[in-house]
């Protein structure tokens, strides 16, 4: 097996865009029998690329965009999403999901978990979860990071109950968004696009029945580096192509690599590609300039995340087959 070439993730962007658009049109019209596509625009590169591909597949008149901000969304996200909708001529609507989240107790349940760790956590404080350990062979665990207004960051390891409650409460955000996407899809007789890239899809970085739910996922086969290449080719605004990926889910800015992935996306892409192509850990280590042991940990972490999130992809398990629907 040869060592890693620097351009393993290079794609022919035009060929890729044409192929996806062609398949997408066939999936919507022939397989799903819907009249168009609903896309939630987050202002990030994945949903922007999906929107551009949807327009190329079915035309701008058959794509409906949704912006679904809440209390912790960055204002920049909405500005960028509107930019994309305008550029590609997509009809769109902004729906503030904060009242729905408030009614469900999303913020209250989250804050209750935070106060169990930081009792003085107040209304105007900011917070996020950060991943720790993992990379050097230590266990992955999660730290709660909070910041009082004008104060310094404070952090503490989260006990399991508080960690799970905070994640569970926060998952309301992705699930409420998906409910609204399906409301508009049902209203228009459209299908819903899911926007995961390959890293997210493979490593299970999505909420089941939240952003994981969709009728079609047009870029799930593309590494994040390739999504950026496609974004540049499709003319997505530069500020979106150049922004570092964040979750836009917590009130403190949270990089995706800070929450979930062991490495920044460009390195994570190469590591995942290498794992998928049977590249020995020694070659990955040489490519990154790290110790072989560290490369082995990266491969182990990839496997562990795949295993831990397999159930997120699974259809509900049945006790016995139900033919002819589930033979």
């Amino acid at each position, binding site marked *: 097996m040869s060592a890693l070439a620097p351009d393993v993730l290079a794609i022919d962007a035009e060929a890729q865009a044409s192929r996806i658009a062609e398949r997408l049109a066939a999936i919507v019209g022939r397989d799903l029998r819907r009249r168009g596509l609903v896309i939630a625009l987050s202002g990030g590169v994945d949903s922007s690329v999906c929107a551009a591909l949807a327009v190329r597949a079915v035309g701008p008149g058959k794509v409906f965009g949704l912006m679904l901000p809440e209390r912790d969304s960055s204002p920049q996200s909405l500005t960028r999403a509107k930019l994309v909708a305008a550029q590609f001529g997509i009809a769109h609507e902004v729906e503030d999901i904060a009242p729905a989240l408030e009614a469900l107790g999303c913020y209250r349940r989250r804050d209750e978990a935070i106060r169990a760790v930081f009792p003085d956590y107040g209304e105007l404080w900011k917070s996020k979860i950060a991943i*720790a*350990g*993992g990379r050097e*062979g*230590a*266990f*992955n*665990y*999660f730290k709660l990071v909070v910041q009082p207004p004008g104060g310094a960051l404070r952090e503490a*390891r*989260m*006990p*399991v*109950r508080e*960690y*799970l409650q905070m994640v569970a409460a926060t998952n309301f955000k992705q699930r409420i968004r998906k409910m609204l996407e399906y409301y508009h899809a049902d209203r228009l007789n459209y299908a819903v696009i899911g926007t995961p890239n390959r890293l997210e899809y493979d490593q299970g970085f999505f909420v089941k029945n939240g952003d994981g739910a969709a009728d079609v996922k047009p870029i799930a086969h593309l590494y994040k580096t390739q999504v950026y290449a496609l974004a540049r080719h499709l003319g997505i605004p530069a500020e979106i192509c150049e922004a570092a990926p964040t979750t836009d889910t917590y009130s403190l800015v949270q990089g995706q690599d800070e929450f979930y992935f062991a490495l920044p996306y460009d390195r994570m892409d190469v590591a995942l590609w290498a794992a998928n192509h049977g590249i020995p850990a020694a070659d990955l280590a040489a490519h990154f300039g790290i110790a072989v042991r560290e490369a082995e940990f990266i491969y182990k972490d990839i496997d*562990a995340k795949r*295993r*831990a999130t397999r159930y997120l992809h699974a259809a509900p398990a049945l006790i016995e087959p139900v033919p002819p629907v589930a033979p």
Partner: protein
Amino acid sequence: MQDVKQAVRQFLLDNFAMGGGVTIADDTSFMEAHILDSTGFIELITYIEETFGLAVDDEEMLPENFDSLANIEGYVARKRAQAPAA
């Protein structure tokens, strides 16, 4: 004196091996045997802290302390040996 290995083994069997078919030897790696994922390890750490009255430090979150019954027994013994001085 509480048998650390037996208590932890029972905790794992009750919570992470429902449906049966799992045996946990003293040196079984929970990671290698796929008994625990990362959330499972956080649950295990919380259980150990609450059951044995210990505070696990961040830098102690290592396989050599928690990835088998024997490792946990050794870790708990070391922490208990430190405790009276604290």
